[in-house]
């Protein structure tokens, strides 16, 4: 289980935007920041399940579209006064191709 899984190309995600990877266990949101960093987190806000991929992306953070919680994309931690954490997944970018940690599928397989 050490094979990274390819999920798509960087340039198919808008800068300061996100797209989803659908898995049998739910969606994973893959973000691209202004400076082309890529992050992957669960597409479910720990607050009330808001789709984080639909939020506004600023710096390496995203603001949830439902009630404006802000999450750090690299740690998954809620910022400011809100408390909560969203699961993050390791990603690897090679020549514009995005690979995601196989852990994802481990979870999915459980």
């Amino acid at each position, binding site marked *: 289980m050490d094979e990274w899984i390819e999920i798509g190309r960087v340039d198919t995600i*808008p800068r300061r935007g996100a797209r989803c*990877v659908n898995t*049998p266990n739910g969606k994973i949101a893959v973000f691209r920041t*202004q400076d082309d960093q890529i992050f992957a987190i669960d597409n479910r806000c720990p607050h009330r399940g808001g789709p984080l991929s639909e939020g*506004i992306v*600023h*710096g390496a953070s995203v603001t949830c*579209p*439902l009630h*404006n919680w802000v999450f750090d994309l690299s740690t998954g931690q809620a910022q400011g006064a809100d408390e909560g954490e969203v699961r993050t997944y390791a990603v690897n970018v090679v020549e514009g191709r995005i690979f995601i940690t196989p852990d994802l599928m481990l979870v999915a397989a459980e």
Partner: protein
Amino acid sequence: MSERLVIVGNGMAPGRMLEHLFEAAPGRFEVTIFNAEPRVNYNRLMLSPVLSGEKSYAEIITHGDEWYAEHGVTLHKSAPVTQIDRAAKRVQSSNGLVAEYDHLVIATGSSPFIPPVPGHQLAGVVTYRDLDDVDKMLAAGRGSSIVVIGGGLLGLEAAAGLKLRGMDVTVLHLAPTLMERQLDPAAGYLLEKAFVDRGVRVITQANTKQVLGQDRVEGVELSDGTVIACSMVVMAVGIRPASALAKESGLAVNRGIVVDDQMRTDDPHIFALGECAEHRGICYGLVAPLYEMGQVLASTLVGVPASYQGSVTSTKLKVTGIDLFSAGDFGEGEDREEIVLRDASAGIYKRLVLKDDRIIGAVLYGETSDGPWFFDLLKRGVDTREMRDTLVFGQAYQGGTPLDPMAAVAALPDEAEICGCNGVCKGKITSTITGKGLTGLDGVRAHTKASASCGSCTHLVEQLLHLTLGAGYNPAAVQPMCGCTEYGHDDVRRLIIAKGLKSIPAVMQELEWKTSCGCAKCRPALNYYLVSDWPGEYEDDGQSRFINERVHANIQKDGTYSVVPRMWGGMTNPKELRAIADVADKFAIPAVKVTGGQRIDLLGVKKEDLPGVWADLNAAGMVSGAAYAKGLRTVKTCVGSDWCRFGTQDSTGLGIRIEKFMWGAWTPAKLKLAVSGCPRNCAEATCKDIGVICVDSGYDIHFAGAAGLDIKGTELLCHANTEDEALEIIVALTQLYREQGRYLERIYKWAKRVGTPSILANVVDDRDKRRAYYERFVYSQQFAQVDPWQERVNGKDAHEFAALAEFGMPVAAE
């Protein structure tokens, strides 16, 4: 057992007294209040802004129903007390309510004086004292002619307010110059000029002979034979202490109810408070003394020694744009000297009256910031010989070089009075800021009352906040847009244009944003400002838009979307309805609902189905209803002259025309309109951002209503004779709002901030300006009127509606 305290009258004086009382002895008194007015307690000083439309009644309430409940106070509304039985220690109201007291406070205020000229009892003669009077005046309606008798503080505030409401106002004043009791003739003349410039007619030395009319007011005749036609007369010639009730009960009454230094009448169980009281021969007509009385009475009631020593008062006129301050005595006399400063071009006039080198009177017109300083010197009787040469230039000039305004406030002694209404001095404000850790104006108002009454010292309080908190508080640079910048919305808008900034990175670079790419607050705002200011040049940044405006549907709590197609003016037809039904079936849309905006909502659409849903709706001729947009939403209509037996104009047609003209436009916040075919107003036009009421003679255009988080009736903007004119005005108004509104600021908040006069000046009074706004809107529409659904059906932003990758089965299981 708690002591029974009964209060007659629920005005400003007892309101304040009770606050002191509950603080000093919570729970000790069981309080019952009888109020002639049918409501809770409000800030009477602020009636003029309510009259002019600058504030709403809700905003001036000082003690709401919850306050009475919280303090266990029984408030009888609409219950004037008609009888005091001193032997039984009992009062009775006109509607038969009875209360027994241990202590009775009479606080009946004043009654407006109505000169007994013939015709004074006709319908249409009103006074100016409470909210009901304001409602009566407003009922006269835009365009009607009103005569205000009395050119004192009240009369002038009434005249200015009525003028702002679009009425045709004439002020009649008996003396040769306005406000002659507070102003000398020179300042009175300047004041008259300022009113005339505003379009108010002023006639001085006008002796009213009679009010003319059969059943209703039709005009006013002066003793020189002049007749002024009008439909309403506002009597504002003076007030009389309301002391009749006390007199009938056998209490000692001169002009007012006679009280001692503890506010006690000649009956030891009865006190009098406020304007109805006479203390050392003086009856007051301003709040500052009443607040001092209230404090003394509260102390007396709880048994703490206190005594009222009388007050020196100062006056400010609360008419937006006119600065006027007066205090003390400014009559001429042998033993008096005066210093006068005039700057005709700047419209400034200052006059100090001195006796034995001490200021005994001050009149400031046009520039009043030194008012508190002069008033302080006056009250303390400071010898001014040393500063005589520069005295009139104000505090900033004392000690050589001029000080900036902040330094002037810094230089004030701790005892200097900042808030005249509440008698709050500088030291009290600064020590409360520090002691209670206050950070803003609201806190200072809550803890010290400074600037909480007439509001004219607000800027001084803000400067004190700044002085005390340092850079932590900046009164000039209002609220920053967000944590990413120091600039407020208005500065950013101004600089975008001034520096020609045409992209979000350019704004962030030039205005030194503190974050690399902003946040969810500033980015959508900047995107809107750029869209609005550079039509055709700036390319909309989808990633800086909230999800709804990015995918052109409303996100729901479960992450699905709702879709609302436009139904122009609320009209639809079988073909559209069939297409909606078919789409709902085809995509298994779980809910179909009629919205509050006269159209149909399809709720629960999956994101990936959106383009398909839109394609089918487009095919039936429907476009996005923008139910998600900070932009034009709906134009509600009623059936109007097409069908309705009362319809005066084609309200449906006009609504559709407006919606077709304005759809696609982005605005600072959402924009909702309505057109009603007659004043019955079935389209609810008078609570919309912009509303039209059709009448026989054309179209009344209303604006600045609210019916969401706040409730507020619209204000009448103007009347249009034709549909074309109505459309031009509505479009120009919208464009003005687009250019000035702060992001997320609805029209009613924007209007309140910039003031109705400036809006009238731009879109009503000046045809050329109106046309220019109209044309800028029309220009920007060519870039905005593109159906976003159609664009996406044709492939725009396809990445939004498809997953990056799909994994059907867990890899591990393979």
